[in-house]
């Protein structure tokens, strides 16, 4: 087992004829990911990397039974691409689009959540269940070396840091069940607490690692789930960006931030919040395997 994707996942790639999509598809196919269809309106009937291209997601799903979509459509078209995938019955999707306008992101995520679907991203570099399936650019051409299979669930706000986690776990003789690169944007489709609940339900995950940055309420929600007894597997956290607290902040622009913002969204406050809930908080990636071992031994 693993979460979100496994060896049975059947993938459609939206925007499959673009350069980045082709580049990633080659390595995903080599890895063994079952990419069964691509979609680019106007290019139906062609093939890319041996994969048949369709004009619409609906046609791709009907012809191939795809159940998961990797969306390379850039920011300007991504809301439509997500709505099209939902309409075609896709319930797991990734969006690699960067710089998605906030209002668009909110609308797309609200639609995805209403449908009971899962969106990884925006601005994710991918998702990997080592040895089974990888989506997006995660791991590049070195996915086997960077992400050995194992029993640790990884949930990271940064794509680059997901690879560092894979490296650190591998160096310690450990590996991952699934690595979720959540996407670094303020609005992303999944909450860290939701990913942790999926790992909680996964019999092949023994413990989780989360990586966070300043801003947002992901960690506070995870702590609420831990305190509610929903998450019993050990969690190790790395939260970076504490340096920002040492430097002058931007001048206030309006009052609203001071009136409604959560004071607990600095890196230091998040570390404290997590530690108080029993999460083991690392200062460096190098400590993460040791903390995991200690957590699993208790």
């Amino acid at each position, binding site marked *: 087992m693993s979460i979100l994707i496994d060896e049975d996942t059947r993938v459609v790639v939206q925007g499959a004829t673009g350069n980045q999509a082709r580049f990633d598809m080659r390595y995903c196919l080599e890895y063994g990911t079952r990419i069964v269809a691509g979609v680019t309106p106007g290019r139906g009937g062609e093939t890319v990397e041996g994969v048949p291209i369709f004009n619409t997601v609906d046609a791709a799903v009907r012809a191939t039974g795809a159940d998961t979509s990797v969306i390379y459509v850039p920011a300007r078209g991504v809301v439509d691409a997500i709505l099209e995938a939902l309409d075609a019955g896709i319930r797991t999707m990734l969006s690699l689009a960067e710089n998605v306008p906030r209002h668009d992101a*909110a*609308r797309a995520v609200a639609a995805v959540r209403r449908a009971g679907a899962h969106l990884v991203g925006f601005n994710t570099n991918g998702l990997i269940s080592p040895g089974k399936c990888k989506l997006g*650019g995660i791991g590049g051409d070195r996915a086997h070396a960077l992400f050995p299979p194992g029993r640790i669930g990884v949930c990271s706000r940064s794509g680059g840091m997901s*690879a560092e986690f894979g490296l650190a776990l591998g160096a310690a003789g450990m590996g991952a069940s699934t690595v979720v690169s959540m996407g670094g944007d303020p609005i992303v489709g999944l909450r860290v607490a939701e990913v942790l609940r999926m790992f909680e339900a996964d019999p092949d995950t023994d413990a989780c690692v989360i990586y966070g940055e300043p801003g947002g309420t992901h960690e506070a929600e995870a702590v609420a789930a831990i305190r509610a007894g929903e998450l019993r597997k050990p969690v190790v956290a790395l939260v970076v*960006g504490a340096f920002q607290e040492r430097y002058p902040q931007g*001048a206030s622009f309006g009052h*609203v931030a001071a009136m409604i913002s959560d004071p607990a969204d600095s890196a230091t406050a998040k570390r404290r919040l997590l530690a108080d809930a029993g999460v083991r908080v690392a200062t460096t990636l190098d400590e993460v395997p040791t903390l995991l071992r200690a957590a699993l031994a208790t």
Partner: protein
Amino acid sequence: MKLLEDAAKEALRDAGIEVPRGVVAAGADEAAAAARELAGDGGRVAIKALVAAGRRGKGGAVAVVDVGQARGAAERILGLELQGAKVARLWVEQAVDIASELYLAFAWGTLAPRLVVSRHGGVDVESAGHADPAALVTREIDPVDGLRTWQAAAAWDAAGVPSALVPKLAALTVALYRAFRACDALMLEVNPLAVTPAGAPRVVGAMMEVDDNALFRHPAWEAMAEDSAGPGGRPLTAGERAVAHANRTLPGGATRYTELDGDIGLLVSGGGASLYQHDLVLEYGGRPANHTDFSPAPTPDKLVAVIDAIFARPQVRGLLIGCNVLQLARCDLIVEALAIVLRRRGIDASRVPIVLRLFGPMEAEARAIAAQFPGVHYLPAGTSLAQACREIVEAVRALPAGADA
């Protein structure tokens, strides 16, 4: 991008919302003439510093005066210094007769916009909110359905405004939400939201921050976009301006550079890894001379600008180049950029520690370039980011006192 008051109010007017008529004035004479033109000889005007800062009222940068006193008020505000810079321009507008002051804002919550309203507006809105928390009401807005009139009415009702005002405020609030959305705003604050003696709600103070990622839908603002403020709102330094210029004009992804007080230059990439390495350099007792976050580029030019800006500062005694293990930029182009600056500035890398943690495409070529500069320490494959941070901190600490680039 923060819109100044003139642009914010123009955007609201374009959205069909009534705002006081006003103009921008560059000096006291212009302000006095504008005041007469807007309000007539017996009228009253509001004169405000045209700066991207909140709390202007508290800082004495807003005056409501008779037209005859407009010049004096303008001169006084033009003499003020806000955020480290003199006030250069004023916003002059017709004064509104105010019976009471309310507050309204739209901002972003976790996944959706929020409406914030209070029956206490004006310069003391934050302290009033603490003193009377029941008057401050926050409501989440569904991003698909938008804000319904009855939801806006319920928020104002809960805030405790007089019943007769509720329908008028609800209608204005829905119109403002439409503007917030049409403008791709990250924040829209109306303070005060004035109530006239006749009982009509009027937008008086307005500020708006719009989403840089949505400027493609707003070409007029795109042309104005020029981020001119460093941390704490200070003006950009020469080095920061040079990098900002390179960032705009040279090929490659977004590259940010902010100067700080320390002595270790950081050329670190990847949103997460740049934060992580900055934390660790501090953790190990080092003092970063800057923060950066750079993205891949097809040529070394943009990085040359960043590395040159770093070494242009005499306080810089070492450099860490640290990238994620899986980064897709060509390593040789990054090291070539370093080589160009070392040659140009005649920097002896055996006296200025330079540590590279850089793996990925064309790594062998990159190592060969680095090998031409004795003292450049290119860390072996598998070295962690933490080890790289420790390495540069210890190398700089080991330098004899007073040595510099």
